[in-house]
């Protein structure tokens, strides 16, 4: 397996899915070539390829997936997203940053993840659960579906 393909997580139905592929297909993100992924106990980490040969135990790069895509993922790679993005007003953005769920004003598709933007700056990943957009740090964990894999 190529180094960048190493970050694998489990979907809702128990099947495994590659995070890079998930992010590329869900959000249309084309990752830079020097970014690699790694599966660890706490989730999936993304880091620069230069860290690959290191044989020392430690946490490399940032955590991009921990039961769901993280805010660090959105804030680092969100600008590359071309799909499943939603722009928020200031009140909504501030609510999200305080881990408060916000109303699904734009009637986004339920069961999907979206990268939210404020003034064209990526701020967080939300999970659309019916009438609400739920932030990552709400404490609720939503495993992604593997519907893309099924396609």
């Amino acid at each position, binding site marked *: 397996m190529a180094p960048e393909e190493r970050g694998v997580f489990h979907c809702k139905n128990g099947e495994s899915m590659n995070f890079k592929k998930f992010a590329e297909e869900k959000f249309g993100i084309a990752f830079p070539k020097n970014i690699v992924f790694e599966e660890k106990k706490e989730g999936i980490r993304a*880091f620069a390829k230069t860290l690959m040969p*290191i044989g*020392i135990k*430690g*946490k490399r790069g*940032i955590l991009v997936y921990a039961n769901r895509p993280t805010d*660090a993922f959105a*804030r680092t790679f969100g600008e590359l997203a071309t799909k499943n993005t939603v722009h928020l007003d200031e009140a909504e953005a*501030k609510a999200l*940053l305080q881990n408060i769920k916000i109303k699904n004003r734009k009637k986004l598709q339920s069961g999907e993840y979206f990268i939210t933007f404020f003034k064209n700056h990526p701020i967080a990943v939300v999970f659309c659960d019916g009438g609400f957009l739920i932030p990552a740090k709400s404490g609720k964990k939503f495993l992604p579906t593997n519907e893309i894999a099924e396609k």
Partner: protein
Amino acid sequence: MKILGEGQEIKEKLGRGLCPHAAKQVPPNFSEGSGGTEALTCLVRVASPHAPAVCLFNVFFAFSSMEYQKYKEWLMVFGREDMNEMLKEIKPSIRVNEIKITVDRFMEFSELKLERTFFDNAFFVLDEGIKVGNTIEYFLGYMHTQSLSSMLPPIILWPKENEKVYDVCAAPGSKTTQMSAMMKNKGIIYANDVRIERISALISNINRLGVLNTVVTQRNGAKLLRPDYFDRVLVDAPCSNLGSDPYAYIKWNLKYSIKLSYLQKRILLFSFDSLKPGGTLVYSTCTYTKEENEEVVAYLLEKRENAKLVGIDIPYDIPHENGLSEYGNEFRRVWRVYPWHLKSEGFFIAKMVKV
């Protein structure tokens, strides 16, 4: 130049009238070597010469005052006695995280009132009553709260893209993330710290600021990681914080500095050994005592013949004092940055190379 520490010297200084207030507070028979009881007995007499049954409240404050005066006197050796008062008035500063955003774009986005500083990507925050850590800019990782003087050690180390850098005492990660931005998120940074509670802050900052070229390790800095391996090493050693914490003097005493000095020497020695020949090491602390600064560097120069103290050369005109020359003329090359230099914390910085 001597550091205050011996009781005799304190008395000498007080006798010269450097600090008349202190002279009133400290009894004539006070000495540093006095036990706590003896000192307290003296103070009871000072606080209330006509009433032996003086309340403990007064004794406590007289004692505190004495410690404080001793500290202030000691500070005068290095510059000004009001240094920790100045620390309380320092304006908060931020560094724009150029990994995520350019300075121009940040200025467009941010609603904070900012004032330019020596560095292109660092600003004083002029808004009063705003908690910088609660702003959107902070959450998004576009900026990091960092004192101006603490930005100096990475600038002096000047890591380049694709180099291997070792940040020995990295938490909470201000300098690590600054170096990562300087390296354009390329190369390798080993960000190490020994205490797990500090490492969680380091990891949190790395996540928030989008640092991808860093591996966080939890090791004792006073043990060798990899011999002759790193291009650059930053040792921002644990210290008594007299330059950064206006209340650090409360727990400070000379013994504390000496204890820290022992640890700093070990950390510096092993960090130097992990540096490859031709590599650069920067040693910094945010304190003023010579035991934690010049003495530590002198120890390395004595123990390692291939260690050479070099001058600090950066493209900024930073006001500073030179190091204490009692350790040799070469110590004129190290920097002592005091609060009035940058309206920021006090710092000691030395740059060395492995020849």
